[in-house]
């Protein structure tokens, strides 16, 4: 599949690429301006992870963030999504190689849960981050959500439906 989207032409360091490399895999890349040691810490320490993992544009409030980045260790993030119960994302670390490789299994998805593998490659003081999300099936990948970003797509979907109704109405 060659479907691929890059961010607008901007300074090289700001470029995020997202690519579906197969029916079951998504690969995200980005170069971060800092050594691998620091970037790895930002991924594996709760007090740092919670500062960037939930961008404001997601429209979710992070209630708690617990991370035990050791093989077999758990992580758990809880969000206020406006309902009575918080939404939780949790899982288990399956690979932890300081400063070069980190992998975890997303357990909240049950059978459809994905495994995320992140590699950190340092070059000239910058770090290339390659994040691979592997899903057990194409269906699980298609259904994978991104929180508030999904809500926006839903909004566009509703607009599409409205347009179809308007077009059909005018045809009669």
């Amino acid at each position, binding site marked *: 599949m060659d479907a691929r989207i890059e*961010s607008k032409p901007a300074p090289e360091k700001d470029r*995020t690429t997202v690519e579906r490399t197969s029916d079951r895999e998504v690969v995200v890349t980005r170069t*971060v*301006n800092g050594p691998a040691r620091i970037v790895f*810490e930002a991924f594996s320490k709760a007090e740092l992870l919670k500062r960037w993992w939930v961008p404001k544009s997601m429209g979710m409030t992070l209630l708690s963030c617990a991370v035990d980045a050791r093989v077999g260790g758990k992580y758990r993030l809880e969000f206020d999504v406006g309902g009575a119960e918080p939404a939780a994302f949790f899982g288990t670390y399956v690979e932890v190689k300081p400063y070069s490789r980190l992998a975890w299994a997303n357990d909240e998805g049950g059978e459809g849960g994905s495994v995320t593998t992140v590699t950190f490659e340092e070059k000239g003081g910058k770090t290339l981050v390659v994040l691979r999300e592997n899903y057990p099936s194409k269906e699980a990948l*298609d259904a994978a959500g991104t929180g508030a*970003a999904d809500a926006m797509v839903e909004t566009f979907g509703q607009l599409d439906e409205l347009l179809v109704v308007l077009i*059909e109405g005018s*045809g009669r």
Partner: protein
Amino acid sequence: MVKYGIRLDASFAALSDATRRGVLEQLGRSDASITDLAQKFHITIAGMMKHVGVLEQVGLVTTEKVGRVRNCTLGRYRLKEATAWLERHRQLWDSRFDELDDVVEELNRKERIDGRKNRE
């Protein structure tokens, strides 16, 4: 912008016909050959080819000839869905990494200051 306008007009024209809207609805349920569609809508094969041609021109339907049969599938909509999926993932990761940049920058700065302090 002009290009989008023309394309939009053509899409509206394509959707202005009841048979063509029916064909889209049908293809939304499952792919079908021109012959299947002609039978379903009680029109000639030549007539159906014309309708499908209009839908194909604006990208609502794509067709592929397999042997002697021309198969029809929903076109642009699927592509749009695939693009939307990638785009919302890209937006999420882009804003995530933007905030990571700030965290890393702060840590870099802290290390430089600490390094200086240690040398003092």
